């Protein structure tokens, strides 16, 4: 007997993600899902961001890693609530993991939750986790061909951060090409170029965050 089904395979993940999104909305929390390759600078970006905005906002970080608590320890030193998720091999975070992590947070008065996804350009883009938006982080040493090779993330992201621009003089990285390709993939994508190390462009990223919090509050 053939039974037509027609169901989205990831429906249960998506339903849980919706539940989370409703919760974040009701509590006025901006939730950003930070996705990049390993080594693009997610943790450094977060450290600098937390230190810069600590007096303005209440923030928390959910750290996704396959193994170790090294990143969570770095973040915890910035004095914000941190929950570590070790995926034990899985290459991405899903909404059930985030749900369990959020249960461990005290969410009252929180303004922003950063979800630092597992370093990987492919799988994390596939799994919604109740976020307001995905922030894709692309660093200059990775090469300017990444958006073409991993279009899903760049076509879904709300913001693209191009990190390590202080290395532009030393590497062949065509910024114009990247901007052209990602705008093609995603015409409404916003782009901020920065260096988390030198602080160049960082103020623009902070203003972007402030705007998200303002929008949420209004």
């Amino acid at each position, binding site marked *: *007997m*053939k*039974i*037509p*089904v*027609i*169901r*989205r*395979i*990831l*429906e*249960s*993940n998506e339903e849980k993600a919706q539940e989370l999104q409703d919760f974040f909305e009701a509590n006025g929390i901006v939730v950003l899902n930070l996705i990049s390759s390993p080594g693009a600078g997610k943790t450094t970006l977060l450290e600098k961001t937390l230190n810069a905005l600590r007096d303005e906002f209440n923030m928390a970080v959910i750290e996704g890693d396959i193994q170790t608590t090294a990143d969570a320890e770095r973040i915890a030193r910035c004095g914000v609530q941190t929950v570590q998720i070790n995926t034990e*091999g*899985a*290459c*991405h975070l*899903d909404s059930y993991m985030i749900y369990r992590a959020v249960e461990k947070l005290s969410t009252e008065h929180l303004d922003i939750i950063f979800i630092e996804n597992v370093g990987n350009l*492919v*799988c994390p883009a*596939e*799994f919604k986790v109740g976020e307001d938006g995905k922030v894709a982080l692309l660093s200059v040493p990775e090469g300017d061909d990444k958006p*073409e*090779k991993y*279009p*899903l993330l760049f*076509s879904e992201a709300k913001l693209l951060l191009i990190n390590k621009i202080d290395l532009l003089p030393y590497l062949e990285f065509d910024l114009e090409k990247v901007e*052209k*390709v990602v*705008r*093609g*993939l995603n*015409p409404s994508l916003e782009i901020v170029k920065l260096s988390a190390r030198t602080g160049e462009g960082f103020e623009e990223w902070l203003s972007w965050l402030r705007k998200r919090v303002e929008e949420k509050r209004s």
Partner: protein
Amino acid sequence: MHEMSIAQSLLDIIRDEMEKNQLKVLFKVKVKTGKLNAIVPDALTFCFDLLLRDTPWEGAILEIETVPVRLKCVECGYEFYPPIEENVVSIFSIPCPSCGADFGHRVLEGKELLIEYIEGE
């Protein structure tokens, strides 16, 4: 390896549908995956078989149809299939065959991740 999570979610749906339709034996499952999801069919089949091992459904066949990317030109509205390539590299930056616009095509198909039917008794 997102295939394992996908296989697990797939199995949850199969279990639910088998129960709803009072089926005991599972012969076949048909799924559709869009090319853009970067799912490796062999890896998905491997995970599916692994999850069914030592269960009453062991041996059920998983048929995977990969749906090619179909685009709609944002300038002129022409609908087309980008040339088939090994990877998804550069399918977004190819010129529209009708007007030549080379960016901003809308994805009509190629993102789906669906179970289409199950066969059993």
